[in-house]
């Protein structure tokens, strides 16, 4: 038996809410919801809030009556806190297990140290206890022979309190009965499109999908669909990926705290997003051949509607923020129209390549490039050390008229010297 026999999925329960509870334990057992940037929609809910019927992504204004009636505690997203706690979770996992794939801010796949089924179960319980004791973060652990089945196991765990947060799903009868209770679309890897297609062929449950002909699946759902099918049958097709994949595209956008009508105000928001994109590119050692800009009015409000996007291209791929800023500015000038109340703007890069492999004209302006790199390095260092308000591009401006509303955000307990938790 080799180590790869079992794969575990560690999934933090209601992660953002759990992070808030660590520093504010009285939130436990109460209906708590976390709002997205700009306090628009619920992006995390405690079990108690879920029980009240508030859906993931529900706009705040739509459920305001529930919030008032049940005294729901509402917080703005505190991403500094969540990402610090996530870093702690992942770091503990990396020290505890031989292989860890960070799948998202609150999920990781692991390989176990132990070989036997019993020991693996014990290891799962132990890591769960450790994460709760050390960080106050409750997790669910789903264990199975493949990644896809470990996702299924984790789903089961979250729905059945009596499993006590750890479930090892490797018995064929159990797998089949669990899949009978799952919709095909609930399976990891079967997206909305595929689920729709399957439904049109009369396949609704994951169990019905499991019994499909492999050739038919490959033909109709591509090789990825076949992989999902094999994974459900216990044949591991998806490896753990130790290194986080670099993004092939980057998007930064946000809605404004109030509608903007002036181009210079919108331009400031765009410039801020561009500087974030530049940082993201350099962090993953990539350069981009293009930068896109989009602006839009609020679809939910009355008044004239307008949305437009434009993509500007570079002759040589770049990660140099001033170049990106100039291109984005040119793009914005092409699409901006007076007379509209703009609600949201953003920038995106779709043509990203690794910096090393990009085509470089060795004989042209090499020195210039080195200097550009140095400037960006210094800039990134300063902002990493002193925060991103310390040094910024003039085009971003300092009045922050477009900045988002975060009216109910908790303090930066782990990231800001001035906001530490007080003890009496």
């Amino acid at each position: 038996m080799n180590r790869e026999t079992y794969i575990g999925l560690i999934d933090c329960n209601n992660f953002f809410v759990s992070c808030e509870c660590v520093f504010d334990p009285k939130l436990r057992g109460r209906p708590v919801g976390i709002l997205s940037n700009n306090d628009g929609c619920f992006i995390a809910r405690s079990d108690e809030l879920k029980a009240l019927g508030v859906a993931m992504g529900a706009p705040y204004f739509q459920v305001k009556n529930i919030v008032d009636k049940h005294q729901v505690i509402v917080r703005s997203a505190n991403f500094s806190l969540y990402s610090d706690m996530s870093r702690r979770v992942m770091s503990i996992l990396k020290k505890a297990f031989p292989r860890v794939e960070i799948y998202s801010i609150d999920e990781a796949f692991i390989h176990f140290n132990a070989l036997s089924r019993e020991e693996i179960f014990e290891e799962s319980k132990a890591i769960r206890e450790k994460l709760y004791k050390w960080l106050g973060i409750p997790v669910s652990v789903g264990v199975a022979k493949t990644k896809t089945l470990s996702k299924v196991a984790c789903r089961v765990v979250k729905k059945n309190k009596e499993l006590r947060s750890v479930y090892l799903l490797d018995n064929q009868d159990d797998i089949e009965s669990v899949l009978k209770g799952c919709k095909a679309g609930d399976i990891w890897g079967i997206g909305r499109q595929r689920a729709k297609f399957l439904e049109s062929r009369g396949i609704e449950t994951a169990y019905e999908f499991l019994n499909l002909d492999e050739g038919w699946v490959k033909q109709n759902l591509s090789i990825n669909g076949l992989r999902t099918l094999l994974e459900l049958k216990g044949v591991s097709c998806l490896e753990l990926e130790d290194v986080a994949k670099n993004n092939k595209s980057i998007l930064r956008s946000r809605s404004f705290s109030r509608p903007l009508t002036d181009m210079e105000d919108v331009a400031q928001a765009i410039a801020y997003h561009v500087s974030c994109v530049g940082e993201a590119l350099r962090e993953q050692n990539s350069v981009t051949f293009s930068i896109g800009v989009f602006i839009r009015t609020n679809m939910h409000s009355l008044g004239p509607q307008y949305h437009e996007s434009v993509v500007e291209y570079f002759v040589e791929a770049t990660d140099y923020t001033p170049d990106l800023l100039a291109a984005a500015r040119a793009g914005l000038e092409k699409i901006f129209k007076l007379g509209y109340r703009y609600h949201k703007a953003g920038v995106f890069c779709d043509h990203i390549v690794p910096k090393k492999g990009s085509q470089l004209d060795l004989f042209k302006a090499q020195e210039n490039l080195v200097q550009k790199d140095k400037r960006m390095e210094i800039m990134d260092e300063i902002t990493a050390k002193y925060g991103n308000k310390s040094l910024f591009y003039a085009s971003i401006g300092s009045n922050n008229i477009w900045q988002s509303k975060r009216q109910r955000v908790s303090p930066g307990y782990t990231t800001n010297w001035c906001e530490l938790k007080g003890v009496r």
Partner: protein
Amino acid sequence: MFMFMELAILNNEVLYIGQVQKEWLSRCPLYLTGISAGFPLPSEEVYESSLDLHQLMVKNGEATFLLKVQSYAMDGAGIFCEDLVVVDRSIPVQNGHIVIVFINNAFIIRRFIKRGRKILLQSDNNQYASIEIEDEDDFEIWGIVTFVIHKP
């Protein structure tokens, strides 16, 4: 005798070009920093690194948090108002530990004393009454204080 060309480059400018003997080169550490003149900086040698306070005060980084003291309850233990405390959540509590406790909807700092089945949250200041705990469910030990950061 083999001769080697040596270049010293600083700020994209070539500062020194010369020929040196092979034997001399092999005894010399290769400096990656630029050499302007005279005696080179021995920066590439292996020395012990500077003292790092984090290394001293944080044994288990993942489980360690900083909190700010806002009372005089632990004056006697040398923990004053406005001090920062280093709190490790991974350490199992022992009799006499200074702990952060969540009780009655508040975070407090006290000394943990266990007498038989009774738990006492003792303050090291006469002005504060100690808290006696009957039911274990009524409170939660949040972490153990391992260091105090005090600005005189």
